[in-house]
């Protein structure tokens, strides 16, 4: 069960139309390292996690990623809500406009549609948590790259916030991996699959 709270986790108030910026930022909606991908990754992986608290962490971070997706979408929306056809053409936003007008649709910056092939749910806690650590790093790099290119402070503030969240989540997934390792054989972490061969888990 989920409930909706009618506010953004971080406020977004963008007053200047900029389809070019929207086209870059939309990658964090539907791109390979985007927030949608992050949320679906964690919310898919959590069911079979052998350590209960790790399942809890994946739920909480997966939920927060949905709130981040909403922040990104709010930014794209506000950057394009007063868009004219001329502005769309001048900024190279015309191809997107043809298919979606000003609506939100999950895609990468280069137009590749969102796909679940962007993430894994492997059924092995070490593999999945290591993927999660990498996912946070990849998303952090996207925010780095966006912050290099975008100068509007109204856009930068939420991006800075989201970038820090990637680092915080990395720390938490690292701790979750430590918690998982406590239940494994430290002489050989790969002796069994902690999600499949649960009888070997230590208390």
């Amino acid at each position, binding site marked *: 069960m989920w409930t909706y709270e009618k506010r953004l*986790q971080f406020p977004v*108030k963008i007053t200047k139309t900029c389809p070019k910026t929207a086209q870059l930022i939309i990658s964090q909606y539907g791109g390979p390292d985007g927030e949608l991908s992050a949320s679906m990754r964690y919310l898919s992986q959590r069911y079979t996690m052998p350590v209960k608290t790790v399942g809890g962490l994946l739920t909480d971070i997966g939920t927060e990623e949905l709130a981040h997706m909403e922040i990104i979408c709010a930014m794209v929306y506000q950057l394009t809500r007063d868009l004219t056809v001329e502005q769309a053409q001048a900024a190279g936003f015309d191809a997107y406009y043809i298919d979606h007008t000003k609506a939100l649709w999950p895609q990468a910056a280069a137009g590749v549609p969102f796909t679940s092939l962007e993430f894994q749910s492997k059924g092995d806690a070490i593999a999945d948590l290591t993927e999660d650590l990498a996912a946070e790093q990849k998303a952090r790099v996207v925010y780095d790259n966006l912050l290099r290119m975008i100068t509007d402070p109204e856009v930068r503030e939420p991006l800075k916030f989201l970038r820090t969240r990637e680092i915080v989540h990395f720390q938490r997934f690292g701790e979750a991996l430590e918690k998982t390792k406590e239940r494994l054989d430290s002489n050989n972490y790969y002796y069994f699959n902690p999600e499949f061969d649960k009888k070997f888990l230590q208390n």
Partner: protein
Amino acid sequence: MEQQHLAIASVPMQNWETLYDWDQALATGTIFPGLNKPFFVLEENSFETEFKPDENASPEQQERERLMKEISALSFALDDTVLYLDTHPESAEAMDLRKNLIEQRKGLLKEFDEKFYALTKDCIGCWGEGPMPWEGACI
């Protein structure tokens, strides 16, 4: 942390520390100064644009924005505390803070509900009232 082992990733467990105040935490993206690792292209001052109510707005909207800002900062502090607790369930400091934040948040949500509109399904005010969050009308 236990001793290090070959062929597996290790991240040290975080220790509790003195936290940012909630406004700075929201502006930064964490309540923990130890997890604030800015990118070099970012300006020194993390408060580029502080959340200020629009001075041209009506007194009602200014009050709404002030209260919303307080709710955002407090709720975010709770979000970050809960993630810490997920991996540090034994932390008494985090537990106390969580309890405290939940109480304060309840009060603020009730105040916002009574003065303006419902933010959650537990609020009595009309669910359909107020601007949608993505409109940027009420930061």
